[in-house]
């Protein structure tokens, strides 16, 4: 029988993979994608709790998380486009104008 723990562990694994992607990749597009992976892992947690605790609020909140994630991806990609136009690279180690 699939219990809540299975879904929570799967969500933890996906979240850790997202964090690894954000920390270890230098391509800005891949970092944004790993961010989306983290948000999806949290969505899975919400929906699993919604099912196992019998409340619909988890799914409603998952919908709002999707809204926020879509908005964030749009703005993040616009920033990536602007950075590429300005400095010709999307390697995050090269974008260090604000480093002291």
């Amino acid at each position, binding site marked *: *029988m*699939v*219990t*809540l*723990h299975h*879904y929570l*562990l*799967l969500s*933890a*694994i*996906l979240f*850790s*993979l*997202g*964090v*690894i*992607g954000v920390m*270890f*990749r*230098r*391509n800005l*597009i*891949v970092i*944004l*994608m*790993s961010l*989306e*992976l983290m948000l*999806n892992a949290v*969505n899975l947690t919400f*929906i*699993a*709790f*919604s*099912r*196992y*605790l*019998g409340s*619909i609020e988890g*799914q*409603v909140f998952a*919908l*709002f998380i*999707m*809204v*926020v*994630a*879509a*908005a964030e*991806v*749009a*703005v993040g*990609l*616009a*920033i*990536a*486009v602007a950075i*590429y136009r300005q400095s010709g690279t*999307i*390697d995050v180690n090269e974008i260090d104008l604000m480093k002291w």
Partner: protein
Amino acid sequence: MEAVIFYVLATVTVVSALCVVMLRRPIHNILFMIMTMIGLAALYILLHAEFVAMVQIVVYAGAVMVLFLFVIMLLNLEQMPFVDDPRAARWYGGIALAVAFIVLLLPAIKAYTTKTGAPCPLPLGSDGALSNTQVIARELFTTYLLPFEIASVLLLAAIIGAVIIARRKP
């Protein structure tokens, strides 16, 4: 039977997520991300959240990932030289820390026990009288109406912001 389906879907999702994080070319990352989104949507259907699953496919796999593809094609990122990701030692250290993190998280996960471990029989019209969409709609338009409206304002702000930021300077 449900366990078999869950393990198959979970394996597909985790392997796709690994490919998203590890592969070198951005196009491959995007394609495996689409696979991850569809795997997650299938898991949502397994959890009886059909509306959220369909929204996931339409919004994430259908719009967000296509937006990523547009940006990669627009900026012609495939022609860029590969950036070197960190040395192998850092990858191994990072993966070891991630495994340690999950292992430390296990007691917290185990603490979330429902009384029997089985999914709660849905009081949400579980006799099939109400579909998942109807239950979500009933909550979304009565109790959560204010966040719903704020979400539309947020989307408007995001659209305007994205257009302004990505505009070509005249």
